[in-house]
């Protein structure tokens, strides 16, 4: 069934015990996972809403991934660690802990075949790991500031990382060579009055046909410390690395994009938070969205179910919400 964003509605609310952060659907479609400010990971069974907590990190967890077979969950902490978990266990204990970085690990990406995991964060290095045994494959350097986002090219040959400076770096997965950088600096600001860097490439998404790479975040950050900005996504033509379009929103002050997804039905989808919280839908050719769905609370992360109809978002009010892009049942 094709998704219809104009039919978007909240289908499910899943409560937790603390404000939620990153989220991810399990690719088999059975579970949804989210990290929380109480240093737990929550797993909900979609069929009945049953909740299980995973706890082992000594910090918040900024991202998580589930392997394509749904058997392994990997979490990225602010405690330098990657932790491998049995995703479906009743009483989950870590399978493996790897000190992967010096400082927060902010972003993860899984290769299209699910065998390689990329991680990046505050030490400005991207590292590649074997999913099967947690061994390091290689490192990628060249980012000028903290890594905020990662994505594999659909063909698995290239890895891209977005950083705080508004640069998107492309590396060759096979040999670690830095190939080029895309200029997404409209997503970064150094606010001279407050003396702070703000923004960055907070989300990355490839179109399924790999024609487009989109970086998302914010612009117009005139008061970073006071949450004054607007969402912005930049569309790059992959072949030329030329920025061809800005995607703006329609009257959504104070939001910034936290997550993006290029939907199989051809539209670009972003979750934004900071204001009231919205899901924003753009067509390829348009600057302005063809639809905006107001969430009940500011969003912090997003994951799209394999069916393309269910959108999970996490919220500060300790709830994970699933928005359905189809008519109400």
């Amino acid at each position, binding site marked *: 069934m094709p998704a219809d964003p104009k039919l978007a509605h909240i289908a499910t609310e899943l409560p937790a015990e*603390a*404000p939620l952060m990153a989220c991810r659907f399990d690719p088999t479609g059975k579970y949804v996972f989210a990290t929380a*400010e*109480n*240093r737990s990971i929550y797993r909900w069974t979609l069929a009945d809403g049953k909740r299980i907590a995973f706890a082992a990190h*000594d*910090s*918040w967890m900024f991202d998580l991934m589930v392997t394509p077979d749904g058997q392994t969950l990997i979490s990225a902490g*602010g*405690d330098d660690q990657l932790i491998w978990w049995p995703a479906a266990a009743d009483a989950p204990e870590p399978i493996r802990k790897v000190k992967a970085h010096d400082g*927060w690990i902010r972003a993860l990406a899984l290769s299209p075949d699910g065998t390689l995991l990329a991680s990046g964060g*505050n030490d400005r290095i991207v590292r590649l790991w074997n999913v099967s045994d947690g061994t390091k494959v290689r490192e990628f350097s060249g980012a000028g500031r903290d890594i905020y986002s990662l994505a594999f090219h659909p063909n698995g040959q290239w890895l891209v990382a977005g950083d705080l400076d508004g640069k998107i770096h492309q590396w060759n997965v096979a040999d670690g060579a830095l190939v080029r950088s895309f200029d997404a600096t409209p997503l970064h600001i150094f606010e*001279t*009055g*407050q*003396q*702070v*860097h*703000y923004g960055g490439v907070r989300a990355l998404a490839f179109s399924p046909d790999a024609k487009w790479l989109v970086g998302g975040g914010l612009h117009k950050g005139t008061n*970073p*410390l*006071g*949450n004054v900005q607007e969402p912005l996504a930049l569309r790059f033509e992959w072949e030329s690395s030329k920025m061809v379009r800005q995607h703006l929103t329609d009257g959504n002050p104070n939001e910034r994009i936290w997550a993006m997804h290029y939907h199989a039905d051809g539209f670009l989808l972003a979750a934004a*938070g*900071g204001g009231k919280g919205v899901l924003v839908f753009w067509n390829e050719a348009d600057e302005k969205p063809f639809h905006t769905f107001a969430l009940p*609370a*500011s969003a912090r992360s997003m994951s799209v179910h394999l069916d393309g109809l269910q959108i999970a978002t996490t*919220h*500060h*009010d300790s709830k994970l919400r699933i928005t359905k892009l189809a008519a109400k049942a």
Partner: protein
Amino acid sequence: MKNCDYSCRTAEHLLSRRRLFASLAGIGASAVMPDFGLFTSPAMAAEMTRQQKRMIVINMAGGLSQLESWDPKPGTATGGPFRAIPTSVPGLHISELLPRTAKVMHQLALIRSINTKEDDHGKGAHIMETGRRKTPAQEYPALGAVVAKALDAGGAGALPGHIVISPGGGGGRNADSAYLGPKYGSVTLGGGKPPQFSERPQGLVEDASICANDIRRKLNDRFALRRRTAQTDAYTQSFEQGLELMRQREIFDVTKESQADQDRYGSHDFGRHCLLARRLIERGITYVRVTHSNYDTHCENFNFHLEQVGEFDGPFATLVTDLAERGLLESTLIVVLSEFGRTPNINHLYGRDHWSKAWSICLGGAGIQRGAVIGKTNDNGTEVTERQVDGGHLFHTYLSALGVKSTGSFEIAGQKMPMADPAFEPIEELLI
């Protein structure tokens, strides 16, 4: 304005230490004030060092989070993502954002139980700056003015004793000395640059400038014979201080420090400003305030503290180390403060808001006990549970640590003006 009895026995006319330095400097080839290390007699340098008390304040503008600095609560609902790390003081942990400061904590102390009950930026800053609540009935001098006045006999011709290094903007003299008079008002070094208008205009040759000032002095002296007032003295002092600033302009130039030192402090503004603070203190300036901006993190508190505290940590630890190694920490009080702390509650923007109920400062040197920790907050940092402290206590404590009797008064036009709020007293257990 009351005519004053300006006999030559008043403190105003005693030879100030800075004037002594200036005189000594004048003997040598350089017009710049010498390092203590340049004195030929180590005993003399040591004595100078021992005698003069000084103060450096680092103002974490906007409100540093106590939870991301001096009083971390990892693993609690309010703790945020950062961990706590051990310090050079056994049993004392601070935020992992301060790894280099952690190594010099044995030189420092913490007060973790401040409750200033004021969540407004301006009013909170006023409490921390004056040790008093803001009232329309009376203006009070800023800490730097009180310290400059209390520690300095500074007569005409001395350099300003109250320097404020700001991250940007211009410069000039500020009206923050209230009844202590303009002599003790701060001079701002905007962007760490030398005071504004401290270069002789290109069109004015030196001989003409000397001549003009000689005429001014003669006229002043003649006027003062019969109509001398505090105002005329302030006028005279301002001119003489201006000339001294011009003569010693290089002491404000941080690029005169060695390249190795500049590298150690870092090329960013805060690093340069910490090095400039060291340079000024070494050259006899009584009080220097450095501002690091900005900590008002209602949004993305953790990202911004990562950035800001990360920038603060290295230069601050370097400054503490340098002062200690140069024997200056015994006489120099160093304080890291804000106008308030930040809420234990983490808002939906990953931010923390204003919070004056339970927050912390770091201080050390001079008469402060090394490695001490005063007060406690509860497990999630929402309340003070032990030894509550207000801004008035802090003000008394600073003065006491500098060897000034904080319950004393300034005599202003025949009226006694308490140096610090008489409703408070020093934190005695923190003092050596």
